[in-house]
């Protein structure tokens, strides 16, 4: 199966290349916005876990190309562990969003102003231990939420990728303390066979009795201690097991039924179109050396 076969199976992949997006993910944000219109009238946004940058491209086009007025007050900051090729009107930072220092850097770029919109499409590498993977994913969302509580204006919107696993209802419950409406949305461009969805949190309501305080010495958990969102706090004793608050968020499928189905196999791709090159820059996996050794036949069972 070559590239063209991937094109055939995945129309969004093809469409992304045609429209100049770096990844098919762009359509997820576009379809979410089609449903919620959260990008109308926003001027300052943060795109976390942004590489290769297709969401930032969508944001850049929306903020700058569609409306050329008041450009000086507009701001897009994109953050990722991986380096990103520059995008017009986007400030990129290569950093770990779980690190408190990173959050300080982003806040510095906003010079005391608030953001209208924070999104995170981040996903850690999975190990296959479902509970650990889900935990790490939720920590990533909490890190994004941490920044959100420091930076988002009242009434602003927070969007993050989630995997609807075992403890997702705990996250729903916690987010509903901070936002007017919490929806679990699945764009048609996200595969039905994957557990991926997006949590769309509308109408930020900062808690009145709690002031977010970033401290490089605090973990995300420490940060939220005292903020009454139903997360477990420990004082001087590790408490007995108890059922933690859970709630089920409203589910919305977006993108409309006339949009492409990412699970379908399409045939109407011309057989001999030359496959376009992948739009993402090649990554540098940590196991590159191991692959090289394997190729050289140095990882055989001959011991």
């Amino acid at each position, binding site marked *: 199966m070559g590239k063209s076969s991937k094109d055939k199976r995945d129309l969004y992949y093809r469409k992304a290349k045609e429209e100049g997006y770096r990844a098919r993910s762009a359509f997820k944000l576009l379809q979410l916005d089609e449903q919620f219109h959260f990008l109308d009238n926003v001027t300052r946004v943060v795109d976390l876990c942004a590489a290769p940058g297709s969401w930032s491209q969508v944001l850049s086009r929306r903020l700058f190309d569609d409306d050329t007025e008041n450009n000086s007050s507009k701001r897009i900051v994109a953050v990722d*562990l991986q380096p990103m090729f520059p995008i017009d009107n986007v400030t990129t930072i290569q950093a770990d969003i*779980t690190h408190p220092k990173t959050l300080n850097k982003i806040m510095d770029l906003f010079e005391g102003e608030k953001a209208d919109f924070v999104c995170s499409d981040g996903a850690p590498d999975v190990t296959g231990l479902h509970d650990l993977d889900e935990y790490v994913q939720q920590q990533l969302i909490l890190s994004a939420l941490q920044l959100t509580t420091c930076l988002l204006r009242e009434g602003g919107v927070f969007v993050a990728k989630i995997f609807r*696993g075992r403890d997702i209802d705990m996250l729903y419950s916690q987010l509903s303390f901070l936002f007017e409406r919490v929806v679990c949305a699945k764009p048609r461009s996200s595969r039905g066979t994957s557990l991926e969805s997006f949590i769309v949190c509308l109408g930020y309501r900062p808690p009145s009795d709690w002031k977010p305080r970033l401290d490089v010495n605090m973990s995300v958990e420490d940060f939220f201690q005292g903020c009454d969102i139903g997360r477990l706090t420990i004082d001087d004793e590790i408490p007995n097991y108890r059922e933690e608050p859970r709630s089920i968020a*409203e589910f919305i499928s977006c993108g409309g039924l006339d949009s492409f189905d990412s699970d379908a196999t399409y045939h109407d791709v011309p057989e001999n179109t030359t496959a376009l090159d992948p739009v993402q820059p090649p990554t540098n996996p*940590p196991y590159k050396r191991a692959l090289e050794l394997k190729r050289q036949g140095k990882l055989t069972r001959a011991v």
Partner: protein
Amino acid sequence: MSQLRQLSHTGPSVCVKFHGKYVLAGYGVFVHVYNYESGELVSISRVFHRNKVHGLAIREKSVLLYGGRSVSLLDIDYLWGNADNTRFEKLCHEWVVSGEHSMDGSSVFLLTSYNKVLCCDLSFRVLQTKAVYGERSILYSGTITVLNQDKVLVNAGTVMDGVLVWDLKTEKTIHHFTDHEGSIFYVAASIKGRYAASCSDDRSIKLWDLHSGHLVSTGWGHTARIWNLKFYDNDSKLISVSEDCTCRVWEISERGTLIQKSIHELHQTKSIWGVDVNDEKMIAVTSGNDGRIKITDLNARTKSDSDSRIFSLDDISKHGVKLRPNEIIKGFYWLRFGLLAMTSEGQVLKFDQKAEMWTSVMTDSRFTSYSATSGVQEFDMVIFSNSRCELLILKFSEDGNEILENKQLQINELTKSTNCLVRGYNSKLFLVMESPNPKDPFFCLRMDASNLQHEERLYFKKPKNFTASSFAFYENFAIFGSRFSTLAIFDLENCEREATVLRKILPGDTITSIDFVEKNSESDCLFSVSDRDGFYCFISINFLKRSHKVLLQNRIPKGFLEGAHYNAQGDFITYGFKSNLFYVFNETKQYEVFSELCGGAHRQWRYLPNFGLDEFIFIYIKASSINFRKIHKAAYPEILRNGLHGREIRDLCVRTEPLHLGKTVFCSASEDTTIKLNVLNVKDGETKTVWTFRKHTSGLQRCKFINNKFMISSAAREELYLWELTDTFMSNPYMTIICALPSSSEIPDLRIMDFACKAIEGTEDFILTTVYSDSAIKVWLYSSDENTFKLLISDKYQTCCLLNVALVTLDTELILVVSPTDGHLVCWNLTKYIPYVIQNNKLVKVLEGFQPQIHLPDISERIAVHSAGIKSFEFKIIAENRFFVYTGGDDNAVAISEFVLDKSHKTIQGCVRSFISAGAASTITSVKLIRRDMTLLTASVDQVVRYYDVSAGDLVLKNKFYTTNADTGCIDTLSSATGSIALIGGVGFSVWTLE
């Protein structure tokens, strides 16, 4: 009120630990205790409510358990005594990566994922929280080394920032190792504190000197991520386990170099998570994603040095044997007392294993240069032959000290011989000689084994294109295996009679073994047959009726297959070569029993029983030295629990009819591309896999029994197979593919998402409908006479992927129902489109004057039910014109829809009757009606099984239960004497009873 109760659970096990003669294993929310000497599962104790046990630490009688955010501290006796210990569970606010007792046992340390240590007293009061200032990176791994009451080191494996070793008391970083790439998955400190070892996403192991802080060496070898490491044998060795399903032993040299010493393939794809070593017994225990708990002898089953010997020709001549300069060993055979070998000079050598002595027995110049050696162990006999049809038969005394018979023969009937096969059967010795001339018959010599007298000479006419490669006897018949995977059956009582020739019974070429298994009440004789290209089959032969049938065909994962047989425990064992290795593999339980790096299949070798239950010897020549390798019966049970699939189970199907009392068969289809045929004990939920089929080449989609005999499975790449199950033999149930569905293109890349069948009364024929990822819908007729699928209808819904399909009969009508990813239910009336008359919900007879039409009729009804794809549906016929559809969707909703056929049978009207939008916190992956369709079970990815009363036509939630299977994806049910049995699959498998 009815209760769901879990009978058994098989699933990922993350940690294992030796404790005396026991193994403690974290098994989901449970701790299992096994006696590794007897293999017995001593107790199962539930310790957490929802979280999996990821680790445990034992100090005297105190056990510290942790997993996720849960921790628990209890007296070890409680694990034996109480089935439920969940009352001790505590919940931390951060993930607990590791835990240890303090030196004096008065407190415990918990390392959390934010690189901080909670120092707690024994009732989990937090005495102190320790961390390194400014180092709050998130951890994937970490361990705590308690050196003494004051000195405690934390070895933290971060996601982004390498390994940090810090001092708990001073909260100062001692070492920061940054040579790895990617996340650190494990860090272990050596027992005596000199080294630390770590592994990361870069797939290497690094050994660090904790005194100097230097990287000492890097171990490469694993082909995927490494999950766990452990020092043992006084820090001279390190063991590693990995995603690649191997466990590797590394020797640490004086100067700290890691040298890979052995590799063990122990678990099924993918991931071994846990490992521990018992230093005294030199055994390891491992646990994996497949739910297996495995004991491995690190000395690879050699008890002493004499179990593994090499003799060069020089060594042999030092025993006083005179060898010419170019004399080499040409062949050998193993008897009770030792080895007999033939040299290129016709010299017969003997190795007495007791005396450890080589001697020269005789020289027979007829066997200079070309000879073949074979023997019969039960007769203490070796046979040498050459190309001129000359034979030498030597029968020894049991101790090998005397030659009891010495017979030299010349077979004049053939002019030349290229092949001499030898077997003993019923105290007779059989010798079969084959000439290179295809016109010559097989020549067979039969004589009394005791005195080599009463020679009988038999000739058999050779079938076309036949070169014998193996043979077996059964009663009066000889069965020969040949190239081109052909078998020929000869009647020994009637040599004139033409052989029965069974051509191409396997996909490969040369048949390497034929073994009799059993004879059933129908006088069908079962044989296992293997071919060198890696395929094996079970063939039932009825010698009286001269009929045969292949009941099972399968292939090994890779390599060459030299033989296969059942062992004493009833496990099917295969052996052969994989590149430069010789391997023995337990095909039933799916693990490597033994392997030896011998250089490959092209050399001279023999693998023979070694006089004792499960005792074997492997002999081979490498660099003109002769190597012996004894393979003993395992000293301990090799498997404490076998597990099931190592990846997600996509579908399950139970056969309704029991196999025999209290047992039933079911199939599990997995993302790992295999289908397993398993036997379930209905009473206690115990599950035993009998066969693992490797026919599909992509992840499985569905499997269903369509009746008691046939099962259908489907997968991506348009694979759909019809399987036939045979349960008339005692040894095992057998299953084989009898027909494959034709695909629509040469390079099929469509997924068959689902299928449905409707039987045609009084025949084994059925209507099959398949739905595809490109929105295609096809209807087929399976004809058992022709054994073909004939296409009746081929059409499309729209462009979206179709997820489910069903065929519903309403009195005289046949309705096709499909659910696409758009969340709708779509119906077509197929009545006029199939060539059968339908009466009383049944397809009864052929419709006269049927006009085939390739396209579907217009859609009869299409209603929106879910706002995302329907993952699973069930049907219930309410009246002769009405049915309900029960659905579960990706939108977390459950629904009941109703469809009514109007009187004229022209239109169908549908509506949603009952809808619960928050039916689960996550995708509902399976719905199942049970208890005469009064109850609906749903399974969802949030790991909750819900139970609805649907008797009144709407959904009334009655109860819900937590399951430990992540990615819960499929359910199948079976009615039992006391209620129902539910099989639930996902990443793991559990059996529940509903009473």
